[in-house]
Each structure stands twice: as C-alpha cells, then as structure tokens.
C-alpha cells in the first residue's frame, strides 16, 4: 500500500499515526509533509527508523518550493509528478492521511 501524507509531522499527527498503524509498504511525503524528509530536524531519527519498514519517497517540487531540496535524508527517494503517478499505479491501493 502507498501511504500519502500531506501535513507537517511537527504540527500534525498524521505521519505518526501512519507509522504507528501501518505495517509496511511505501510512503509518499507531499505538500507540508516534505519537511519530514529533511536532515537536521527533530524527526530525522524517526524517519530513518521508519525506513526499515517502508520505502519513503518525497515529492521534489514541494521540497523545492520550501527551499530544502538540498537536504534530503539519505535513503529517501526523490520523485517528480511523473514518479507520483508511477507510485499510485504501482501499488495495489493507496491511503491519503488527511
């Protein structure tokens, strides 16, 4: 399953809820959720830990808009809009954690 998250994990619980309940699969961070993919934040260790269960992807146009495209945590996969479509098409189903 593909888990799509669009809220900042430092101010909203959806990323935490996803990690708590979902077993495995892929995560795609979009919109304000992309901050979780950046080095140096208080979330970095949590994200690195989650990488053992999930493949984590981040939507680059959203990270570029926020001025943090050069700080992606190693192991997080950058995707563009085409990659977003491939992720949705390549997974059996997806869940948007609104």
């Amino acid at each position: 399953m593909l888990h799509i998250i669009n809220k900042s994990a430092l101010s909203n619980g959806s990323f935490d809820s996803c990690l708590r309940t979902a077993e495995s699969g892929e995560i795609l961070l979009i919109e304000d959720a992309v901050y979780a993919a950046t080095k140096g934040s208080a979330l970095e260790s949590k994200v690195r830990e989650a990488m053992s269960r999930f493949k984590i992807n981040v939507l680059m146009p959203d990270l570029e808009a926020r001025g943090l495209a050069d700080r992606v945590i190693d192991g997080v996969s950058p995707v563009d809009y085409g990659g977003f479509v491939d992720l949705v098409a390549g997974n059996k189903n997806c869940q948007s954690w609104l």
Partner: protein
Amino acid sequence: MSDVKKFMFVNRKAPHGTIYALESLEVVLITAAFDQDVSLVFLDDGVYQLKKAQQTKGIETKNFSTTYRALDGYDIEKLYVEKESMDARGLTEDDLLVDVTVLTSKEMGALMGQQDVVLSF
C-alpha cells in the same frame, strides 16, 4: 499619530501548504500603512516561512518569500524567531532570508505580554 498600538503577528504555519502565511503578510502590510508598531513572530512551522532558496515554479504558486525582504521598506523591522522552533527544524539564522532577532521561548512570552493586539496566523 497619537494612538500608536503595539501589534504582534504570530506566524505558526508552514508556507505553501496553507494560505495562512501569505494572508498574514497581506495583513501585516496593511497594518504598516497605518503607522502602527508592528512585530512579526515566527514560531513552530512558521519559521519555515523565512527559509532561503524557496523556488515555487514546480508547484505553480506565487513565491511570496521575497516579500519578507521588502518588509524593512515598510518600516517593519521587528522580526523575531523562537530559538527552540529553529533548532527542532535543523535551521540556523544563516538559513533565513532576513535578519531576525532570535529569542528563547521565555523571552518570546515576555514580548507577547507587552502587546496591545496579537493576531495569530
């Protein structure tokens, strides 16, 4: 003007994902036109509003981050960032578009206490 009030704008939302940051800027500029004593505060995800190198071409929205650099042209020079919020996001003053005063949570609270009007975004 005789009755100048102290206005504080508290910005706590990340830019681009919601309209709050842009709307706050609009109201700040309006307030400045009335010659009030304006302070801008950036807390929590609000500190992301000031991040350098924002490039919104890919998401096809207005890159309003450049407006923060124009604020001193409107005599808005009191910009405050909470240290704890910056630290939690791995940001330093060098990452920010404009010169700011960095305050601890406690100092921020004291500053809030001095205001006549506090507007939250």
